């Protein structure tokens, strides 16, 4: 086991954005999303019994998650998810041997699509937030 060697994963010097750095961020965003999954479970456990109580705890829950800091964190999380998703779609194709020779072009196309998706979702969420 080599923890010291894994420090090499986070080395950015000499790395290409579309290759080594994309790989690093794919790892980091993946870990963030996995961590978020369990936070999500914990958050959902607050809603146990909504069916019988008629949703009082849901109203409290909604009040928390619709506060400005939570919405801001949500938007950041969207960015993480859209990056992981856009880069992930590229990786699915690449790992099947499709588009491996045009890595840079493929990466940036996916990044542009990912950012467009993120901006669209952010726009909808922010608009709904301001209109509330």
């Amino acid at each position, binding site marked *: 086991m080599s923890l010291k060697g894994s420090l090499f994963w986070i080395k950015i010097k000499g790395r290409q954005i579309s290759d080594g750095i994309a790989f690093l961020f794919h790892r980091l965003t993946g870990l963030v999303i996995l961590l978020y999954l369990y936070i999500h479970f914990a958050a959902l456990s607050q809603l146990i019994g*909504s069916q019988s109580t008629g949703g009082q705890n849901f109203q409290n829950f909604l009040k928390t998650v619709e506060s400005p800091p939570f919405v801001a964190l949500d938007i950041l999380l969207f960015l993480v998810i859209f990056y992981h998703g856009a880069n992930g779609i590229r990786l699915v194709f690449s790992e099947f041997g499709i588009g491996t020779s045009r890595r840079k072009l493929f990466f940036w196309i996916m990044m542009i699509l990912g950012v467009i998706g993120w901006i669209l979702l952010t726009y909808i969420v922010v608009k709904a937030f301001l209109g509330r």
Partner: protein
Amino acid sequence: MTNQESIKGSMAPVAWLFQLITAIFMVFFLGVHLWIMHAEGSISLTIQSILQRINDPWWKTFYIVFLVSVVYHGLNGLRGIVFDLGVKKKSLTNALFWIVAIISIIYGIYLLYSI
């Protein structure tokens, strides 16, 4: 010409294939989830609409498949990172992976039925 020593099975390709299949699933699942909870939901998210959705058998199936995909994809990714560190105890890592995955899936289904 056969070399018996080198011929052994490996489930690694299957794990990889599932990682890719769940990835494709999740582009769809997470897209739907983000849309109904955040885009559409930002405007009209009520407990009634949520309860109505999760009591619908189709939506319930959707959520269960989503749950299994996301837990598998996330934990298998983590398992890959652990292996990349050069961990020698592969079977222990695999056993831990399955235990955590099964507990997570059971807990997720419990949440789905108890809300």
